[in-house]
């Protein structure tokens, strides 16, 4: 009954930095199934799919479609064979309409000129056929993330894709949007489409998929039917041990306020407020989490607090010092550490060595000088200590950081930010895109810092993380605080989703509690 439609045989891929992403990988996908590809970050899922879609070239191995070997040199060839991919980061033109984005590269013409009418028609028909509710005429930049994703899927379908690759599609979605996406994907399956679904969320896979291929360390470690295998089994195969989702920590004992934010307003355009009257307090010894769909003001907030953005109204004080006129270094000197959400841009200097990355916030201090010059012995000693302490897998402090995996890069960032003698830590997506081991390491370090009396602001799109690590929690929606939960343990995920999506909002009095000195 199940007919094999696609198989990848003995795929091996080595990246230019020597990282072996795939090693003799065999993947087999049946027609009309939703096939999950699951594994830790860095297990090789994305690489395998990039090879299938023609973005990367395998060093060894072959790809068979309907039993025939095919060469996929670039995405156009892949699309020609009916393979479509929806990337984690959308490839859409924000200033154009939905319809224009859908037909990009295959624009319909009348008398040799681009035809908007036909464009709209194609998009409309497709969205009706597949039951995707999108307005062909709205501009991409006005859409929610969930809508953008639908446009991406439509784009692939309109190009004749029979096999759809979805790379962590739910990572950016709210629970409600995820439910909707699953309904649509099941609809596609009924119509005979084949879907490869990359994820590392076990519950989603159990809910949606038929079969599951588990990868670890660039190799396939198991292919199973969903239902014949438990979540615990899958997680064991993925990481080689049981994941402890529960974060172990004692109850917070908050003391004096460290970060006090009152009535912050920030405009992203002259009309639109990206932050609208945000107030809250983070106290010494507590972790305040910020949940929310990305783009609701979290990034702006962390940039304002750390001094990277100076154009805002309102008052911010850190340890009773108003930071309005302070430079980034002044603010860091007040005891602020900052893990940026954008590791590759702000967190590290890719061309630098590990040591150079570790000292960027402290190199100028007296203890790193020897006479007129930098004290390289001290820098070497400290870098080595940090590498050891933060368990960075590398070949010494002089190794270029861009030869490390994402998780190890983030450990270098954490090693710097968590050892600066901080009193306030702004951790914006501290574990994004890194493996489970590094993630739990960083989470535990945050809790350790809290227990030492740091105030911690944890911004995270990972619900599991923000719920487990935080002591109390605020939810941001549309630049405002939509909810405040004094005890993050008591929050119900579905309810949280409704606050995140703006379906519900607490009263001003309830929200105001987070900004009052207790």
């Amino acid at each position, binding site marked *: 009954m199940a007919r094999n439609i696609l198989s990848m045989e003995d795929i091996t891929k080595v990246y230019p930095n020597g990282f072996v992403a795939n090693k003799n990988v065999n993947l087999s996908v049946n027609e009309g199934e939703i096939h999950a590809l699951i594994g830790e970050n860095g297990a090789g899922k994305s690489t395998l799919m990039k090879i299938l879609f023609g973005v990367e070239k395998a060093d060894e191995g072959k790809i068979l479609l309907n039993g025939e070997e095919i060469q996929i040199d670039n995405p156009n060839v892949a699309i020609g064979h009916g393979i479509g991919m929806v990337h984690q980061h959308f490839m859409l033109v924000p200033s154009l309409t939905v319809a224009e984005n859908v037909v990009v590269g295959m624009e319909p013409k009348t008398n040799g000129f681009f035809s908007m009418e036909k464009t709209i028609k194609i998009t409309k028909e497709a969205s009706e056929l597949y039951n995707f509710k999108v307005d062909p005429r709205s501009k991409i930049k006005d859409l929610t993330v969930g809508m953008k994703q639908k446009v991406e899927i439509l784009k692939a379908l309109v190009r004749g894709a029979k096999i759809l690759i979805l790379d962590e599609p739910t990572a950016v979605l709210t629970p409600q949007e995820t439910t909707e996406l699953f309904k649509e994907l099941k609809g596609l399956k009924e119509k005979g489409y084949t879907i490869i679904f990359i994820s590392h969320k076990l519950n989603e896979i159990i809910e949606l998929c038929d079969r599951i291929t588990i990868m670890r360390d660039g190799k396939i470690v198991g292919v199973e039917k969903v239902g014949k295998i438990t979540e615990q089994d899958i997680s064991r195969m993925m990481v080689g041990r049981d994941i402890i989702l529960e974060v172990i920590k004692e109850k917070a004992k908050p003391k004096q306020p460290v970060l006090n934010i009152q009535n912050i307003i920030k405009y992203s355009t002259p009309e639109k407020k990206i932050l609208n009257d945000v107030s809250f307090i983070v106290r010494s010894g507590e972790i305040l989490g910020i949940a929310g769909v990305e783009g609701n003001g979290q990034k702006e907030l962390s940039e304002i607090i750390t001094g990277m953005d100076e154009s805002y109204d309102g008052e911010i004080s850190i340890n009773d010092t108003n930071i309005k006129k302070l430079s980034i270094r002044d603010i860091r000197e007040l005891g602020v550490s900052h893990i940026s959400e954008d590791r590759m841009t702000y967190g590290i200097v890719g061309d630098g060595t590990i040591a150079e990355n570790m000292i*960027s916030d402290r190199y100028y201090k007296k203890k790193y000088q020897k006479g007129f010059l930098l004290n390289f012995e001290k820098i070497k000693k400290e870098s080595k200590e940090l590498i050891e302490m933060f368990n960075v897998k590398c070949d010494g402090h002089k190794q*270029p950081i861009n030869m490390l995996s994402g998780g190890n890069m983030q450990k270098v960032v954490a090693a710097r930010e968590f050892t600066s003698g901080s009193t306030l830590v702004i951790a914006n997506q501290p574990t994004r895109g890194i493996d489970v081991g590094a993630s739990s390491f960083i989470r535990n370090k945050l809790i350790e810092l809290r227990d030492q009396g740091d105030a911690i602001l944890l911004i995270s799109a990972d619900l599991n993380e923000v719920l487990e690590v935080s002591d109390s929690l605020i939810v941001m929606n549309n630049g405002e605080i939509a909810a405040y939960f004094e005890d993050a343990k008591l929050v119900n995920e579905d309810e949280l989703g409704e606050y995140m999506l703006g379906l519900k909002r607490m009263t001003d009095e309830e929200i105001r509690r987070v900004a009052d000195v207790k």
Partner: protein
Amino acid sequence: MLSRMTNKNNVEKQFEILRTLVAIAIALSIAFIIILLISDNPINALASFVIGPLTTTRRLGNIVEALIPLLFTGTAVSLIFSANQTNLAVEGAFFIGGVGASFMATQLNLPPGIHLVVALIVAGIIGALACGIPAILYIKFDARPVVSSLMVNYVCLYLGLAVINHVIRDPAAGFLASFKFNKTAVLPKIIKGTNVHFGIFLGIIIVILGYLYLYKYKKGYEIRMVGKNVDFAKYSGINVNSVLMSAQLLGGFIAGMGGAVEVLGMYNRFQYQKLTGHGFDGILVGIIAKNNPKLVPLTALFLAYIRVGADVMSRVSDIPIELVSIIQAIIIMFVVAERFLYKLKHKKIVSLSRNEINEKEEIVNG
């Protein structure tokens, strides 16, 4: 496993060196082919090009003379380009620095030594101004330094010539040149039978100081971090604008001083009529040296050598001196071509990684 990783690091480094050497080899081979094709007596031409510079003291001296200004401009460019600023005003700074030094050397009467030091410092300050203008324009108005610095070069040229023409021109010289320099301001010659002058020591000191500044001093760390990732530098608390400014002022200072050293060491009056090209040669040196002053002497020496070789060849054979420009261009093109020899490097890394995996598996499987 650790040793394997080291190997991979080494592969990166080895290929950097290999790429530069292969680039030089290809450029030289092409030069040889051209010589073979157009010369009536190619053996003679080739010999004069390759061995010519070594044959007499005078020619050996010529190499050192050509080397000295490149030590200054190469170091200046290393500083500026390390901050990832394409500021080409090094050329103008070198020229106007020479003018400034000439003014000091002709107009002042100071004791020996002090006179020289004053002239060098004034030239440095003027050079710093020249390179500082594009820096300020970029910081304040977001004007691309590539464009503004090229304009600054013209300003330096004509402003400098105006000073020579209207202020310190010697009517008795018979051509556009300044008065003769006071003996108290000139750099002494150090080797008989050549024009090799005291500037070689100053050049070496500048290279050493430049290296220490850029790689061993906290300000140099700032420059390199800003150059590699400006967002990261900002995020870390580095004052980016002040770093950009100081890198370019310092580079300009060194270039201006280089101009002073060149005119006060080589000539007895200022007699340039146009830009000298030393600044652009410095860019060449900087690029091949990967903006590391440590490598500046070697690359500057190489450039000086092929210059003198081409000069000798043009005098004893029928090959014009312009050949050397072709060689330079080819080297630069291959050195900046990041993916040149990339496939070879990738294969090497793949095989290293493969061994690594196999070893690991052997350990696992016992």
